[in-house]
């Protein structure tokens, strides 16, 4: 299955991109996705091993199981206001 990954702020600078598409085995979790991204080498390895994530614009956990077509965002520590 494929999911779309969105990256923001410092994460985007590390990755050199604001979004990417990732192929994952069925049943993969958000945590597994993060490991996959970190395995890409280059700046990707500097993504944090633990990050908040949102799946389809809702906060989720590393255990959240992904589905085909999900929009998964890595959420760096937030600093709004």
């Amino acid at each position, binding site marked *: 299955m494929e999911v779309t990954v969105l990256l*923001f*702020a410092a994460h985007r600078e590390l990755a050199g991109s604001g979004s990417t598409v990732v192929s994952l085995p069925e049943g993969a979790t958000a945590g597994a996705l993060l490991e996959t991204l970190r395995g890409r080498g280059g700046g990707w390895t500097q993504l944090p091993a633990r990050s908040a*994530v949102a799946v389809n*614009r*809702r906060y989720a956990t590393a255990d959240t199981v992904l589905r085909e077509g999900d929009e998964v965002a890595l959420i760096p*520590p*937030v*600093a*709004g*206001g």
Partner: protein
Amino acid sequence: MIWSDVLLEPIDPAAVLDRVGDPRDGAVVLFLGIVRNANEGRPVSGMEYDGYIEMAREQLAAIAGEAAERAGSDRVAVAHRLGALDIGEVSVAIAASTPHRAEAFDAARHVIEEIKKRLPVWKREHYLDREAAWLDGRLPAAAASR
């Protein structure tokens, strides 16, 4: 009417204030977040706000709804801006009106505290010496219910 938005254009505080108020209400609180000229002693020339805008809109609507529920009032309005802001520009405007004052203060305070905890927005400070840095923020609590 509970109202919220995440905008790329300048925020007009008076327009946010005008979204609240009701003949039942004896108290109005307006909070403005402003880009200030220094952070931890270092002079700042401006602030760049990045955001996951679609999710930020949904989170901000949820936060405004929670504040309204706490306050027992549907007169809550909040706008958050993204983009490049100068010193003195408004980054967030929050208004709430309620029959009694404690609830209006609480509603406005709740909205800004929750924004700091969970709104998917990031800011990069630009310093007078031309460096810039993403600010340390807070790791949002992962919560499937949100």
